[in-house]
């Protein structure tokens, strides 16, 4: 297991004071490892943007500690939060760069000048800036747009320029704040592919904030689910996909959800195929081997890193004997987990 690059411990962020105080983040603990693509997912208002902004101190936490790339950015001294100095922070930010949902390019500068911007800030000689900026534009496939202005580009192209810009200072970590949320599905896919490539080629750690599970399943290796300012669950993406343990996890894995109360079945179970077992015709064998017919109420299968992960909601027969037989049969199958779903609204 590789070293950790971002460590967050007991992080709290409260906006306002007294009765109107809003607890945006509560006791967040995260350990993001060097070279991985880590996802943070949650519904809007869950606090994910606040969390990612704490990682470069664009947002000052109320308490807790943040260590990035071996450097403490914020820590507690007794009851008091202490942060590194403004000057140190500005230097540290060259190692943790960020891309945004709205791209945030400088509209009065060409693409090349946009990519040069962070290097201008750090005082690199002009010639070197331009040389490096061209290399980066090449890397994101936009060499021919060097002299175009952002207003002349499509959304996907703008995000590519923003990515090139974010890489100008050779960062160790790239924070992506809803970076694909303003893009159409095809463009989203191409940006995600680019991020994955950059992660592999440059070894840059990528932290992805999103509300779309599809983004997580596409590129992340581990994920944390944020709900109401609290981490509901975190772990390997395939584990969370095959078997979400929390209500919010299920909501995100099955968007739109399955309204169990509307299903006419006495008992409902959820089964999950944990990779590789989806070739077995489970339902058919169940009918043949046990003579029990179950009702498929909903199903969803995704492929994560080449393995099949699927879930199915099954309505068991009314007869308790048949139901027990079916349950036992399914439980005996390898690589399948079963859980009974309570009838709830």
């Amino acid at each position, binding site marked *: 297991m590789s070293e950790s690059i971002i460590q967050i411990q007991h992080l709290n962020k409260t906006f306002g004071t007294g009765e109107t105080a809003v607890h945006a983040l509560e006791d967040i603990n995260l350990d993001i490892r060097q070279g991985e693509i880590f996802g943070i997912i949650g519904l809007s208002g869950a606090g994910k943007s606040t969390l990612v902004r704490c990682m470069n101190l*664009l947002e000052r936490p109320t308490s807790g500690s943040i260590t990035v790339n071996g450097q403490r950015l914020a820590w507690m001294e007794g009851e008091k939060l202490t942060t590194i100095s403004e000057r140190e922070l500005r230097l540290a930010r*060259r190692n943790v760069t*960020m891309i945004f949902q709205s791209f945030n390019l400088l509209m*009065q500068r*060409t693409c090349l000048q946009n990519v040069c911007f962070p290097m201008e800030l*750090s005082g690199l000689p002009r010639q070197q800036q331009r040389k490096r900026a061209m290399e980066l534009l090449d890397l994101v496939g936009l060499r021919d747009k060097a002299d175009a202005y952002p207003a002349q580009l499509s959304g996907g192209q703008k995000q590519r320029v923003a990515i090139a810009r974010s890489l100008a200072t050779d960062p160790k970590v790239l924070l992506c704040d809803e970076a694909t949320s303003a893009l159409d599905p095809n463009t989203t896919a191409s940006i995600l592919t680019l991020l994955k490539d950059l992660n592999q080629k440059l070894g840059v750690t990528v932290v992805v904030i999103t509300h779309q599970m599809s983004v997580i399943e596409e590129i992340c290796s581990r994920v944390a689910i944020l709900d109401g300012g609290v981490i509901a669950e975190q772990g390997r993406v395939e584990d969370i996909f095959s078997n979400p343990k929390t209500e919010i996890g299920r909501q995100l894995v099955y968007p739109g959800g399955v309204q169990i109360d509307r299903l006419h079945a006495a008992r409902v179970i959820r089964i999950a195929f944990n990779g590789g077992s989806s070739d077995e015709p489970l339902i058919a064998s169940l009918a043949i081997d046990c003579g029990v017919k179950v009702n498929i109420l909903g199903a969803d299968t995704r492929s994560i890193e080449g393995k099949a992960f699927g879930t199915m909601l099954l309505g068991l027969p009314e007869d308790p004997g048949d139901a027990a037989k079916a349950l036992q049969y399914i439980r005996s199958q390898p690589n399948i987990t079963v859980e009974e779903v309570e009838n709830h609204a």
Partner: protein
Amino acid sequence: MLEIFTAAFWEKYGSLLLDGTIDTLIMVVISTIFAYLIGLPLGVLLVLTGDHGIWPHKNLNRVLTWIINIGRSLPFIILMIAIMDFTKLLVGTKIGVRGAIVPLVVSAAPFIARMVETSLAEVDAGVVEAAQSMGASIPQIVWKVYLPEAKPSLVLGGAISVITILAYTAIAGAVGAGGLGDLAIRYGYNRKVPSMMLVTVIFLIVLVQIIQFVFSRVSNRIDKRLK
């Protein structure tokens, strides 16, 4: 009034009108330069020190707002007379082109500060945040983000400022500042030469049209969002 088409009129008043126009232009140009030297930094400070600014300073912001509001609440003609002694102290005279420049600057600077504030407020907060996330310092954000990104809007605001100062110079003319306003009042009104009134009005209209045209044109040219 048709005499403005005669050679005799221009022989008699031509050089007066030329001098008046030049005086007006001198007052406008010099006052605008000095007013921006004061108003631009004030406007930037207003934005930086504001609640959502990148350098929030409640008290400083309050003091600035207070000064600017006072400056803006005095009508130009009153301010001009009220600060005459200060003007004399500063430039050695209360009248003429030199005497007019001081009150013009004092009056226009707070106005310009507000214009600048409005232009900078248009700069996308996300872009400023992006610059911060890249480790930009406050001066770097001002010079490399706020001012360049707001440039087209600042230029458009510039037209409004210049035209306002032009209007003030005409008022200054009433208390001996010289320029086109002075001609309109002395000849057009006091000496009852309606043609002089007409010509100065036409000159002022033409000046305003030219100023607006040029500034709008420049603003459009430099705005890369429109391409």
